């Protein structure tokens, strides 16, 4: 029980990831596959961001006054900034992949007039 409470963040992201992964692999509609892809990538972002958390810490911006005077800083006061940075990059990658995939879907729809994978495979024969 303690195991679950202490690590519930991982469990939540794994369940989300399984939902997205199943939609990517199992669904036969191309748009639904893309929705699954988005859920999958979002779950990874949740995972990374949850690794950054520290109990009792605040957002990673150094408290400072107008004079620029800064008190002594301890690493435990602020959450870990690195996963946030990595995920900013990953969000951009996600948006870009999604944009290109949507462009591909429009091209496919132009050509076959459907987004159902079975019908497209039928038409391609």
């Amino acid at each position, binding site marked *: 029980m303690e195991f679950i409470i202490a690590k519930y963040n991982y469990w939540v992201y794994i369940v989300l990831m399984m939902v997205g*992964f199943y939609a*990517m692999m199992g669904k036969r509609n*191309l748009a639904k*596959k893309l929705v699954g*892809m988005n859920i*999958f*990538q979002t779950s*990874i972002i949740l*995972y*990374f961001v949850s*690794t950054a958390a520290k109990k009792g810490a605040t957002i990673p911006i150094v408290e400072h006054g107008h004079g620029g005077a800064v008190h002594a800083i301890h690493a435990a006061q602020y959450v870990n900034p*690195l*996963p946030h940075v*990595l995920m900013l*990059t*990953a969000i951009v*990658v996600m948006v*870009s*992949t999604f944009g*290109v*995939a949507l462009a*591909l*879907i429009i*091209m*496919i729809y132009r*050509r*076959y007039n459907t987004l159902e994978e079975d019908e*497209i495979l039928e038409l*391609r024969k």
Partner: protein
Amino acid sequence: MRYWSLENDHFTISQMTTSPFPILIIVVPLISSFLVPLIGWWKKNLCYPLAIAAVTMCVVSSIAILNMVIEQGTIHYYLGSWDPPWGIEYVIDHLNAYVAIIVSVISLIVVISSKRSVEQELPEKIVYFYCMFLLQVTGLLGIVVTGDMFNLYVFLEIASLAGYALIAIGEDGAPFASFNYVIFGTIGACFYLLGVGYLYIVTGSLNMVDLSQILPNLYNSKAVLVAFAFLMVGVGIKMALFPLHVWLPDAYTYAPSAVSSLVAPLMTKVGAYVMIRVMFTVFEPYFSIEVVPVTAVLSWIASIAIIFGCILALGQTDLKRMLAYVLVAEVGYIALGVGLANKLGLTGAILHILNDAFMMAGLFLVVGAIMYKIGIRNIYQFRYLHKRMPLTMAAFTIIGLSVIGIPPTCGFFSKWYLVLGAIDAQKWIFVAVLLISSLLNAILFFRVIENAYFEPGAYAHDGGSPEGITMEEAPLSMLVPIFIIVAGILILGIFSGKIISAIIQFAVPASL
């Protein structure tokens, strides 16, 4: 007006190298790709020479780097002058420098030959085509030279995104094939990212060298095992290793010919490089061989890939699709060499990265030339092709002999080392697999050659006789790159001993 003197500049931390070559190899094609759309608005014809100039600069700097590596050993370049593991560093050793040269030289050859086929296939999209082409080259080179796990992911995505777009502008079925590639490629990249995340949470580091120092204490941690599994599956999708190759044949068949001759040889090879890097640098060889018996599994998967790829290639009548399946088999050779996990096997695998990049680029360039001039790909329509395109077919024959593995072409030597490695590991079944695959390759290529050279009158009823056929050789801008590759295949064969003693023997981990 300066407030601080130079002596106070305490941020110039001591570093291994200040030579600009390691960064020029990325920055030159990157900035050129940003300039291409701007220049394209002004003059369309300048895009092609600009692309050639940028890739030539890549070749020059990668050769300079290889020289530096041979003279001084491993090079570290700190981006932004932040020392690792806080900043991102480039670590270039013999393996990196070797793969970087392969990538840049093949890109140069392909970009030279691309002019005519792009003008024919994509007349309205020349500007953006070259922009994407340079971004693809940048992504591939960035994967090769970096020493940071997350940076590798970013450049993997640049290469993949450019690849998706370039493949999708091909012929009729291309968008759908590319969409499948997007789905698989994203799964692969996400698995890689998950693997990096699992390593990050148990080590706190993203730098490859730093990870390799922290990880040995954690080899029993389940999180590290899971991370390793996910990294391998992710990379396996990107390099199209056997059960994960399903996206490859469609994607490379429908792509424009200039694109398939760039992406087909290089994307899979760079994937293989990442696999070697993860297995033997980030993790120690001892982990990949004994703690998790991944090399044993890999060698079996690879032998299935070899046989399966060759047999499926036999069933194809479309030359380009046949080559795509041959590529699946060739990836199997590299994976087999890695899976044998001894010095000779890995030497063969690393040598095969070079040889196979040349052979595949050559084969796809030949297909591109045939498509450009005659517009057919079905091998049963190839009759009298040796009369119509004698030089191209001669080149095809020589490259085919190299794929089969006949001395003195380079394909023989890498297979020779793989066989020696299999004998050294006492795994006779892999020796048998290698020999059988050579036979299958021989059948494959002689089928094409037979159709092109010796098919007298099989279709004589529908007109056309040897006398009526005129010579329609491909233009010089396509022939010259093909013959550079043919010359390369022969020269690499002759000098393969030199390459091994100068470069590859240092690239193989010493503890094997």
